[in-house]
């Protein structure tokens, strides 16, 4: 996968993750043009696009568009399911997720994404495992906030 973008129906970018090194200028250009192209498409149209030299897979969930650029030999349908699995993870984590959750807790959304996709490849496809990893880190947050030193809390068996 080359990158993943989340944007709203109004074209506001909510999340962006780039797995290929590009300059900021290029990123902005791609984002702007791609958002325009995807938003212009009608609901019943195909979820796949050949856009410039990229293969784009996108799907709309409520007011949010999830959009991935993949390599030529990658499977489009499985990419749709990657998007879906990510939405499931967000949903499970936030408890019926909405756009606001992602806006206000975007760093959490990033953490979940990093636990699910690493370097553009599906890292962990088991939903349970992804959430377990996130929970571990969140738990630490709670503990350190209540004054315990994290080091003392962690023992290998709990991760």
């Amino acid at each position: 996968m080359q990158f993943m973008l989340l944007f709203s129906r109004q074209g506001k970018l909510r999340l962006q993750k780039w797995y290929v090194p590009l300059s900021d200028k290029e990123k902005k250009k791609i984002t702007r043009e791609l958002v325009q192209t995807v938003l212009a498409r009608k609901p019943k149209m195909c979820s796949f696009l050949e856009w410039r030299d990229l293969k784009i897979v996108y799907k709309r969930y409520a007011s949010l568009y999830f959009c991935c650029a993949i390599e030529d030999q990658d499977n489009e349908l499985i990419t749709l399911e990657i998007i879906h699995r990510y939405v499931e993870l967000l949903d499970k984590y936030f408890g019926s997720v909405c756009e606001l959750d992602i806006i206000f807790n975007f760093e959490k959304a990033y953490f979940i994404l990093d636990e699910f996709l690493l370097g553009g490849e599906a890292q962990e496809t088991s939903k349970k495992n992804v959430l377990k990893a996130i929970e571990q880190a969140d738990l630490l947050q709670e503990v350190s906030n209540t004054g315990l030193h994290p080091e003392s809390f962690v023992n290998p068996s709990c991760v």
Partner: protein
Amino acid sequence: MSDVVEKTLTALPSLLSLDSQPGSAKLSSTSKLGNLIRGITELTSKHEEEKLIQRELASIKEQVSSPNTSMRQMKELMVRAIYCESLGYEASFSYIHAIKLAQQGTVLEKRVGYLAVSLFLNESHELLLLLVNTVLKDLQSTNLIEVCMALTVVSQMFPKDMIPAILPLVEEKLNHPKEIIRRKAVLALYKFYLIAPNQVQHIHNKFRKALCDKDPGVMTASLHIYLQMIQENPEGYKDLTASFVTILKQVVGGKLPMDFNYHSVPAPWLQIQLLRILSLLGKNDQSTSEIMYEVLDESLRRAEMNHNITYAILYECVKCIYTIHPKSDLLEKAAKCIGNFVLSPKINLKYLGLKALTYVVQQDPKLALQHQMTIIECLDHPDLIIKRETLELLFRITNAQNVTVIVEKMLEFLHSNTDDYTTIDLVGKVAELAEKYAPGNEWFIETMNTVFSVGGDMMQPDIPNSFLKLLSEGFDTVEEDRKLRLFAVDSYVSLLQGEPGKLPQRFLQVISWVLGEYSHLREELEPATVMRLLAKLLDMKQTSSETKSWVLLAMTKLVRAGQVFQSAQEVSETYGSSMDTVLRQRAQELQHLSQDCELRARVLPQDAGLEPLEVDSSLSFLDGFVSEALAAGAAPYKPPHQRQEELAQAKALSLEPYGLSLPISMSSCSIADRQSPTLLSMSSGLSGDSTDLSHKGSSTTLKLDGVKRVWGREGYLAQREAVEEAAQVEVPSPLRSPSQQAEADSSHSQTPTPTPTPEPDQEKQQLASSLFFGLSSQSSVCLMGKSEPTPQRFRRKAKGQASSSGAAEQISNSLVSAPSAVDNFLCNNLLDSNITSQVGISSSEQTSELSQGPATTNGTCDTEAESTDGDIKGSNPSLIIGDNGLVAADPTPHKDPGSPKDFCLSSHLPAELSELCRSEITPLCSNQSLGLSACHVHKEDSLVLVVFITNSSDAAIRQILLDLDSEQLQVSCVSDSPVEDVTSHSVAMHQFSLTVKRPSVHVEVVGMVSYQLPVGTPQEVQFSYKLPLTSFIRPLTVSTEEYGTMWLSFSHDTKQNLTLISDGEEPLTATLNVLKEKLQLHIVEIIGMEGIIACQLLRDQPCLMHCRVHADVLAVWLRSPVPDLPDCLIYHCQRALQEH
């Protein structure tokens, strides 16, 4: 999960309001971030937003740089900074603080710090170096979460040069008891493999361990690496096929834990990854493919549920089945599957069905025929993506019968299309089809007119170029060519009489050239009229100066007629003082040539296309002038690269003061020694500058070259290619006899029946029959020509092939499968040479042996020949290195015949080469009439590639043209007059000198040989030849002092640890000696535990190596002025030591 949320919620009161919590968007909206976000949503204009963010950024900036800010506050500030950046406002001041946060924060602050770093910076950002220490520390942490975070950031981005620093720690994690750590470590290594493959060369066996990991997650992660490695070298991993098949069987059989199920399908990601790997392994390999048939069948069968995810698996299965060696019942099932996709009401599946059809249609055109009505419907689909994919499919099934309909559909799409990328692509395709299959002159010209006007100035420049080439060379009878040109002239005149202002520049250039060249063919057309039309172009303000120079050139040709002298003079006066040098040049030419008709007749002869133009590329006619100038004291000419080198040396001078302070001993005398030549070269550098200036002047003339090329080249090229390819665009496929036609007709009167449309309307039926016309009859041809489509770059040359698709042979190396005559021939010599196995046989004897060879064909040797064939086409680096190693280790002349075929061809080597060390002679490609083999010979100052062309037919082969090209290499022909004809059963030899343009671990030469048999059309065969970079490495003899100064002036370097060799001797000496022998390096000096080595890449591209024994490894530091050279060399050092 719910526990955790609960726990978190109960802990809330004790938290600061700054921290946002999961599942509580409302709560966090009271935070500063929440305020910011709400503030922005309330704003109405972009301008206000900008003001607000700038204010926000200013406040963040102030706080982050304050010493009193705690890490916790810092974390909150970072989140806000990320938010501002994601809105598109730069917050680069916070980058360094993000790194600091990752470094100093507690675990959860660290997490935000790492996230900020991974969002802010990219791989090449210099600040990333500051992160290395933090990562190192966290990798060693006892806190698993910290280790996880470090591995996560490493697998997203890490500076390439710093990989060795953390590699041992990451490797260690492969044995970690926790699977999550192992998994992340594997992915980190995958990332390293992608950005610096040679760094992880030595841990390939650890990947195997990861593949066998008991945790499916770790195993899945390791497949990413395998997919990548197998893509690069499928031959190296064939032994793993059975393991991959077993894994897939287990997955499909539901043996994995339920966790890995996705919508009750077992581990779909894993399945798809495995299918991709299998298709790579089974491609063109029957025995490997056979191992996987069963599991593929099983996968197809299991994936029944009606869910996207099963379709994803099916789609991958189908692709795999069509990629590997075919098996009929699997193909049948796959075809059915594709049918389900195509007919699906779901648009995504329909799209993929069309894609799959496009993929397989060359192998199985009948499949397209089955779905013709659906395809027709898709042509009118409201979704442009579907339409576009359908056109792609049609493009693949175009033939001389349906070309008009398909091109019409494509042009229709083009007219409504707004996307530039699609336009460029489609325009190229239309042009290709028009060239290949045009049914008539008018159609061709009109189609090309549309191509030029729609494609405009975006299209690939080779479209107008090859169009003009085609026009000038002609492709049919003289009369037909004349008609074509006449038609073009007529068409263009009427276009210019319309509204030329709307035409794109490229089209105007084409028009001017054609009118200049051929308007005289239309006798009733007054040159003055044409002149006026062209002059109108000059006056339009949107006409570019490039176009204007084309117009001027056309006018220069027009003045032949004489009557237009007056207007030519006017024009040349106007542009004679133009600021544009090219235009001025053209105007001068126009003026002079219009006055001097004798000169004009010599420079621009009418119908020049038919006369070969002799070009004296050595410019020998200037010799007298040069010697005069030299005698008068002018500086001798230096080629640009030499000048540049001298300039670089002059630059190196400025480094001297720094060099002096370094410990390397440098006597004053050596400085003086060095300085004097540098001074000299400085002065010559100056004179070089002046030539450079004139060169710059001519760099604008470069454009002029572009203009000139079309007419300047034509003679030359016409001579070369007109004979080579008697392109006959219009000849209908020779395979279609009337009876076959009837057959074809009957076959599609049948085919529409299975389509689901109950009453397909007349129009669509009609369209279908015109679209799919000729497809069924062609199917046999297509099956023969199974394989990939003709590579684009051979497109132009291959146009002759289209007309005689059955007869033309387009053998790409990977396709050579049938044991052909050359194999037999080679094997025969195996027998022959057994009888006469002495080395010293005179070459004349050998030739006679050779010519007898094919007469006694011997089929029993086929397998042997085939296997060697396989070795070469498989790009297995170890094999190639192996054979190079053999050569390098044995620097004595390679007299021992490595293999019999080597032996018999080697006798054709010229005497001066046969004594030198060389590689084995390897067959490149072969067919019934001719075979190609090659070897490379290591000369002291160059590398010579010798290509043997063996004529194994009974007739002479004529007009042989060998054309080599390489991305990494500079290829130049050594022989002055290359052999063009080879008589029956004899061998011709071509020599090429190779030098490296751009270093790479392995370099490859691709080539094409075209030739003409006594009967039949011209033929072409493609091949490729791979050789390791080590062939170009030669020792560089320098003194320690020279080494010191060179070391300082080189800018590209790399560091790496190598294993030491200790077989009795002192390890450092032993290791260096191995390197010296295998790679031909020069050991400059060994002092204690350190050694310095020098070598050069032909020619004069030095690389220096500094080695120091460190514990039990050899720390190596390489430097070179050439980018990538150190990396490539270290790779070969590793290999050399491994093989030792």
